[in-house]
C-alpha cells in the first residue's frame, strides 16, 4: 500500500506531501504520524504541502485534526509551503486552520519550531 514517508530530523518530523492526497492516504498518514511522534519522541512536526495544487476540505480538516492530535502528544505542528491559490481556496471554503502554525517554507518552519512557542 502506498504511504507518505515521514523523515526524522533530530526531534522534528518532516512530512513532504508530493502526491495527490486521497482520503485513505490521508487517514494512513494521520495514523503513521501519531505513532511516529510517540516512538521518536518528536517535539515538532513539519508538513510540507508546497507540491500540492489542490487541498480540499477533507484534507484541510485532516491537517487541522493532525495538528490537534500532535498537540496532545506535546508536539507542535507547522504547515509549510502553501501555494497562494490553495490559501485562497481554503479561506473561501471557510477553513482557516485555526490552531495550526504556518510558515512560508521548511527553513522558516524549522526556525519557528526551534524558537519555541511564539
Amino acid at each position, binding site marked *: 500500500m502506498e504511504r507518505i514517508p515521514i523523515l526524522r530530523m533530530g526531534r522534528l518530523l518532516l512530512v513532504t506531501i508530493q502526491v495527490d492526497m486521497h482520503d485513505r492516504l490521508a487517514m494512513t498518514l494521520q495514523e503513521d504520524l501519531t505513532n511516529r511522534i510517540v516512538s521518536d519522541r518528536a517535539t515538532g512536526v513539519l508538513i510540507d504541502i508546497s507540491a500540492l495544487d489542490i487541498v480540499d476540505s477533507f484534507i484541510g480538516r485532516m491537517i487541522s485534526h493532525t495538528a490537534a492530535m500532535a498537540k496532545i502528544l506535546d508536539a507542535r505542528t507547522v504547515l509549510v509551503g*502553501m501555494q497562494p491559490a490553495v490559501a485562497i481556496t481554503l479561506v473561501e471554503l471557510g477553513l482557516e486552520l485555526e490552531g495550526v502554525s504556518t510558515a*512560508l517554507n521548511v527553513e*522558516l518552519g524549522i526556525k519557528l519550531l526551534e524558537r519555541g512557542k511564539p
Partner: protein
Amino acid sequence: MSNTKITQLETVITTYHAELLDGWMNDLISRLTRRDKGAENELRQQATQFLQLLITTLGKTSSIDIKDSAWEDVRHLLGDISQSRARQGYSPIDTANFIFSLKNPLYTYLRAALGDQPLQLAEETATTSALFDTLGLHTIDVYQKTREQIIQRQQQELLELSTPVVQLWKNVLALPLIGTLDSARTQVVMENLLQKIVDTGALIAIIDITGVPTVDTLVAQHLLKTIAAARLMGADCIISGIRPQIAQTIVHLGVNLEDVVTKATLADAFVVALQRTGSTISHTETER
C-alpha cells in the same frame, strides 16, 4: 417605414451642395463650445465627407432604411464621428446635433425646390425627417456604446493600478489600499499579496487602509479573508491607518478584529514589523 422612397432629396442635395454645406457649417460652428481653428477644420472635413457620402448613397438606393447594406458607408462614417466625439468628451447632445443641424438648411432648400408642389414637399419633408432621425439615433447609439467601453476600460485599469504591493524592508511588505474594497478587488489584492509573499519570502505584511473611505461589514470580511489567507501561507498581517471614525464603525458593527494586530499609523505598524523580524532602526539627533 422602410418602403418609403426618397425621390427629390438627392437632387436637392446635389444642386445646393455648397449652400447646404455653408448653412450647416454656420449652424455647427455656432453651437461649437470650444472654438478653435482645428475643431472648425475637423468639423468642415467631417461635414463635407458626410454630404458626399449621402449623395452617393442616395444615388445608389432609394430606401431610407439605414440598416440596409447600401447605407453601410454612411453608418460607418457616423459611427467613427460619434466614437471620436465620445472619446473627446463631447456631450451626447453635441454629438447628435451634428446630424440634426443639417435638417434646417435642408428644409430651406427643399422648400425652394418644391415650393410649387405642396403635396410632394410635405411628403419629402416627412421622409427626410424620418431619415435624419434614424441617423441621429444611430450616432447616439454608437456614442453610448463607446462611452460604455471607456467606462469598462477604466474600471479594468483601476483594478490593476490600485493594488501595488511594496517591499518596505527585508521580510516586510506593505499593501496600501486606496478606494472601496469590493469582492473583485479583494480577489486581485489577495492574489497580488500572496504572490508577493511567495516571491519575497516576507514574514509580515502591513495592510494600510488610510485610503479606504469606509469600512462596512463586507469590507471588513474581505480584509479578514485576506489576512487569513496570508496566515495560511505563513505570513502575519498588521492593519494600519485606521482612522478614528473607522474604529468607531468597526466596533459598532461588531466586527471582530481581536485576532489581528492593528495600529493607528503605518509608522507604528512598521516599528512592530521591525521588532518581529529582529531589525532595528536608530534615530540620531543631528544638529542643523
